[in-house]
């Protein structure tokens, strides 16, 4: 049990998917302008990433490995993720309309979120067991949400500040992300 907690902490804080491993930067810059959208995106990523982590692990272990098809991993995973996102979208629309409304537009965006694909590949590369993969998927996604929400908070304040013209919008966003990343850097060596 202790191992899992350690693994979770290292994924959320020390190896934060966004600020230490640079995965998922596009939605990070795109959806962090408002707190609401940041929370929506964070929730959607947690939801999809846990499912994608589980399914891709099973596919790797029971389909690709036994038939020596590892070289098809990239294409198999991206197809799984794309169809999973579509499926989740349809399922939520029918059964949990409230959640669907909340996540709404963020769900389709997740297909091209490299954090999802990245974590699935990390799970395979590190040779995690099924349970470990579930733990890492959930904690990486939580780390993503955490960074996104923190960053959205900072960005809402920047809107009120006077920023030099050439630095406006994305440029100042990136510099701020650098500062936030520096803060997360302090966790290095904790685990």
């Amino acid at each position: 049990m202790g191992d899992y907690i350690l693994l979770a902490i290292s994924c959320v804080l020390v190896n934060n998917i966004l600020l230490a491993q640079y995965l998922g930067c596009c939605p990070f810059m795109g959806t962090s302008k408002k707190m609401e959208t940041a929370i929506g995106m964070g929730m959607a990523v947690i939801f999809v990433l846990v499912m994608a982590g589980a399914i891709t692990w099973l596919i790797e272990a029971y389909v690709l490995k036994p038939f020596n098809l590892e070289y098809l991993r990239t294409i198999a995973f991206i197809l799984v993720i794309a169809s999973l996102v579509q499926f989740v979208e349809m399922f939520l629309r029918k059964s949990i309309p409230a959640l669907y409304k909340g996540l709404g537009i963020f769900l389709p965006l997740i297909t091209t979120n490299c954090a999802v694909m990245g974590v699935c590949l990390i799970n395979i590369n590190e040779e995690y067991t099924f349970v470990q993969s579930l733990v890492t998927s959930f904690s990486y996604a939580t780390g993503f949400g955490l960074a996104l929400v923190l960053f959205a908070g900072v960005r809402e304040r920047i809107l009120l500040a006077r920023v030099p013209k050439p630095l406006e919008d994305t440029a100042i966003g990136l510099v701020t992300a650098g500062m936030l990343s520096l803060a997360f850097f302090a966790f290095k060596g904790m685990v």
Partner: protein
Amino acid sequence: MAKSITQEFVKGLWDEIPPFRLVLGLCPVLAVTKSVENGLGMGVAVVFVLVCSNILVSLLRNIIPSKVRIACFIVIIATFVIVVELLMQAYTYALFLKLGIFIPLIVVNCVLLGRAEAFAYKNGVVASIADGFGIGVGFTLSLASIGALREVFGSGTFLGMSVFGPSYQPFTFMVEAPGAFVCLGLMLCMMNLAGNK
């Protein structure tokens, strides 16, 4: 569509240079630019995939039904990514190890999907090749320039050669994650300054 082939090529180098003008495909830009070599390697891989996928998408543009086009693009891109992955594994193994999971992640690089959707699906083969090559070279140039900046200050070397001599104390902030964000932000600012003259 009166634009010449040269114009299609040149626009990728300045007017629409990713990731500065089109803020797409940020992840590899931040992750693999610790050194010039990594940046160039990644750039070349992207050029290859982009040109090939543009050719195929443009050839098949009348056959692919528009409802499932995104899925088709993804399959086409993924195929070429696997080709690149296997080629790099065979011929440039050291670079393959350094770039790690970022090679398979070219699949989810929005630049590729963006070009397939915005250009290759609507234009002929020759124009698509020019577009893919231009955007790809632009992407490579940006990766290499960020890589150069980070490598020179962060480790005091350029392509592995020492720049400032042995007494230089490397500014390690630049090669770590925070440096990547700040560096890209400041370069974007420079581009804005230069573009608004």
